[in-house]
């Protein structure tokens, strides 16, 4: 098969090359942290697993209880769902003798929306139903825009957005950092109720500093830990544990506004191991390279019209 239409091929080749070359162009669309971003610092080593954050979350957001298995006595979700915006999960191993130890130990982890710096769900949503607040960086959902395509669920690296599968008129449900409470000058319910300061609310810039302070602590010594809100000046004394030397969410997929500290490795806690560059940036890059200002498609269309016209003429 001989192909002579060099001019068209050039166009085709250009788009192919552009599609192939995204890594080289990637840095262009990566986003950086907002200066006034709000977030949560979750410290697994001082979490006692009391689950009051789950109770507080359900109360603050009017969520129904969720039953797993035949028992209908407790609210016992096994994961985030359309009825559960926040969950404490437990890692355990062997005899579970000591907390925050990988072998024969156990540890808690709190899962909810990470409020990414460059959220995949926001980028993915075709109808702009998911948006990131320009000031606080909170990722929230607007059901009036949503078409229910569930691409946000496919896109989210943390599997956070959840869908009401048993509702004929379903919605996407996710943690919105208690925006309704923030609007009233309050703080997210999970942080407000946390007795130990394991969930700490505050500006992300301060939380990063606090996380770095904790990383420098000497294991076994006692230190002051802020409770509820970093600005509240409420303090509790805890014994510092052996922290894993990195802060989860500081760099993962371009950073998240929810940061985590733990005593066991994060993959043991069921958190995905992610690269520093967001997949969102990569996807958007491909998209923007090919469709920027619709120039490439329009040029291609012009070429195509010319070619088709020629063929048609020849046929006649």
């Amino acid at each position, binding site marked *: 098969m001989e192909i002579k239409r060099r001019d068209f091929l050039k166009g085709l080749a250009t788009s192919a090359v552009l599609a192939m070359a995204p890594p080289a162009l990637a840095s262009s669309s990566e986003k950086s942290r907002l200066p006034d971003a709000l977030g949560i610092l979750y410290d697994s080593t001082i979490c006692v697993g009391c689950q009051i954050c789950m109770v507080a979350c359900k109360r603050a957001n009017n969520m129904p209880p969720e039953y797993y298995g035949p028992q209908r006595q407790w609210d016992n979700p096994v994961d985030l769902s359309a009825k559960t915006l926040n969950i404490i999960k437990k890692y355990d191993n062997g005899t579970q003798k000591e907390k925050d130890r990988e072998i024969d130990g156990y540890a808690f982890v709190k899962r909810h929306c990470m409020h990414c710096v460059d959220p995949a769900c*926001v980028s993915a949503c075709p109808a702009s139903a998911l948006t990131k607040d320009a000031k606080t960086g909170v990722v929230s959902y607007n059901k009036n825009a949503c078409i229910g395509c569930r691409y946000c669920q496919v896109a989210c690296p943390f599997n956070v957005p959840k*869908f009401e599968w048993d509702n004929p008129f379903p919605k996407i449900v996710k943690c919105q950092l208690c925006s309704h409470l923030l609007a009233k000058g309050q703080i997210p319910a999970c942080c407000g109720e946390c007795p130990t300061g394991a969930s700490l609310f505050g500006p992300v810039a301060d939380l990063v500093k606090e996380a770095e302070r904790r990383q420098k602590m000497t294991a076994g010594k006692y230190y002051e830990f802020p409770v509820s809100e970093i600005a509240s000046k409420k303090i509790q004394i805890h014994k510092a544990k052996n922290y894993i030397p990195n802060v989860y969410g500081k760099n993962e997929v371009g950073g998240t506004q929810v940061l985590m500290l733990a005593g066991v490795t994060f993959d043991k806690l069921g958190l995905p191991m992610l690269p520093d560059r967001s997949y969102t940036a990569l996807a958007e890059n491909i998209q923007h390279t*090919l469709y920027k200002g619709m120039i490439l498609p329009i040029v291609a269309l012009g070429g195509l019209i010319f070619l088709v016209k020629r063929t048609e003429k020849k046929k006649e």
Partner: protein
Amino acid sequence: MKTEQPLEGKILTPTFLLCCLIFLISLIFMAKRFIYGLGAVSNMSDGYPWGIWIAFDVVIGTAFGCGGYAVALLVYVFNKGEYHPLVRPAVMTSLFGYSLAGVAVVIDVGRYWQVYNIFLPWYMNPNSVLLEVALCVGAYVAVLWIEFTPTFLEKFGADNAKAFMNKIMFVFIAIGILLPTMHQSSLGTVMVIAGSKLSPLWWTGLLPLLFLISCIFMGYAIVVFESSITGSRYRILDESHLLGKVSGVMAWLIAIYLVIRFADVGIRGHLNLAFKGDLLGNMFLLENLLLLIPMGILFVPANRKKARVMFFCAVSIVLAAALYRLNTYIIGFDPGNGWHYFPAVGEIFVSLGIVSMEIMAFLWFIKRLPIYRRL
């Protein structure tokens, strides 16, 4: 030169009635889905938010519908007028593939009553790959119907209208080539954002390119496949010499595709995953073997003259391209922490119902509309 004519014959054949029955059963499940929600008929979950309705009906379904695109590319862009007899049947299959993908989307989408939101400028998200796919597919369905109008006009003897349509048709043909190029590649880009959730055997920044190439050779394979079936069943003008040439094009495209595919996985250093002997590794091997074997066969010119060989090769290629899409959207997708998915009976029936609808429409169209060139 012979022109296209209806094949005539009985409409209510056993095949047609069987399809009718399957379609009626699927209606029950569709009703259930709209009354009780998606969870009532499908096994889709928060871990696997997309099941076969997206992976099969939309992604594979529109790839099935790439026959029109692939042949138009050959005829108009590469100026091979001799393939013209293949255009009409190919456009027809595209028409069904895409229209029914649209039906599947409406069934699949959760908040279907406000699906028009994506067409409202203030709701559009230009960063969304899915938005581009949706708009392009929507536009392409319209273009396909326009491209198909001369066939209807011919049937009803509206010659003036047909002449007018033919005059302006070149614009739609051009758009009809551009749009699939855009959205078939974007169907690959859609899964780029899934990132770590997709096995490295499938996840790559080259997804759009691979999807684009594979949709083209799948389009050719579909043309060969469909012509083989109708050629074996109905007395129509023999197109096997054309099909042979098309098969040659396919073999080359597959060769290019496989080089890119293996180079990509190899350079990223994940080729070892293919030989682990687990489900994903075997799927990867199967998917590529189904391409490698027909490619080898079709490179031998003698084989391109044997209708049966070409039919098997076409089937193998169609299966491979479909499996590639299924792997990328479902099998290679793992959200982690214990989720799994297999389609439910109701879910399969809805997909079957849509396919049945397609077959019924196909049978009616070829018997009543001038599609094929009869002997």
